[in-house]
């Protein structure tokens, strides 16, 4: 497999995996989190313990990391495989967007969600965790969407040369 083929494969992977991550993130921002405002943070905490901290604890980090590796990998390899320079801008934007989204998830959202793991977290800590997750999720969803759009643009540019 040539370096060009590896770059293109990573770009395809970044679009497919990044699209799924963006779709999940935007859906959570627009559909799920507003529902928990109505139902109450304690219901959110209960659901999160069973969903995000259940199967989600494995599925989402794996999916997110794979998307990150593909985005950053395509951006880096494009420099070495003589890809057209017009592909650099979208691929770099996507790589930076994916890295920022990872930092927001890992260092701002995940610690808040993980505080729910205990048997009976107190109501004020649940309230604080919910407010922080809601707030940071806007940035996360925005970054994943920008990354996804840039990866689509980058793939189109890569394939046209």
């Amino acid at each position: 497999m040539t370096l060009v083929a590896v770059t293109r494969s990573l770009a395809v992977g970044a679009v497919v995996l990044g699209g799924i991550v963006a779709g999940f993130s935007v859906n959570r921002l627009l559909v799920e989190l507003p529902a928990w405002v109505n139902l109450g943070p304690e219901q959110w905490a209960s659901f999160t313990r069973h969903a995000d901290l259940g199967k989600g604890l494995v599925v989402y980090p794996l999916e997110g990391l794979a998307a990150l590796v593909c985005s950053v990998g395509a951006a880096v390899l494009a420099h070495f495989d003589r890809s057209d320079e017009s592909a650099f801008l979208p691929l770099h934007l996507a790589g930076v967007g994916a890295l920022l989204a990872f930092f927001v998830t890992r260092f701002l959202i995940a610690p808040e969600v993980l505080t729910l793991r205990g048997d009976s977290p107190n109501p004020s800590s649940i309230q604080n965790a919910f407010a922080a997750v809601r707030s940071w999720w806007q940035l996360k969803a925005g970054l994943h969407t920008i990354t996804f759009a840039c990866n689509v643009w980058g793939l189109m540019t890569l394939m046209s040369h």
Partner: protein
Amino acid sequence: MDGLKFLLAAATIVDGLLAGASLDQSVEQLPARHRIGVRAYHAYTQASHMANGRFWLIPLGIVGPILRVAASFWVYRLGLAEDAVLSVGMAAVLAVGHLLLTLRAGSINWALTPWQPPERQIKDELELAKIFQSFERWQAVRASVQLLTFVAGVWALVALMQ
């Protein structure tokens, strides 16, 4: 030709957002009802998918197939390479397929909507569990077809750009 590329890029973005939302529902949300209970899950779906969800997921589910069908007509009329026609056509067929599956899944879920008259509101846990189980099966098929549509759409984009 540039218009067609833009159309396919837009369809890819719409399909990706839809596939991600749908997979989340099948992989994480629906199974959570076994642990939080069907009544709590029912309240959650009424406050999420049947509230804000209808303004986000329904438009995505309709716009995606429209873009895919429009793109397939366009490609056919341009007389492009077989690979491009096949991939764009396959994405369109799959998109129409998930639209039909949405109609089926939606008809099952309709009984659980908050717009039902009081005498038809379902409160019985066994009845709720049965409806969610049936919905889950159709939702799994729908999510798979939506994912395949997205993947076929990416293939179509690659085939057209080469």
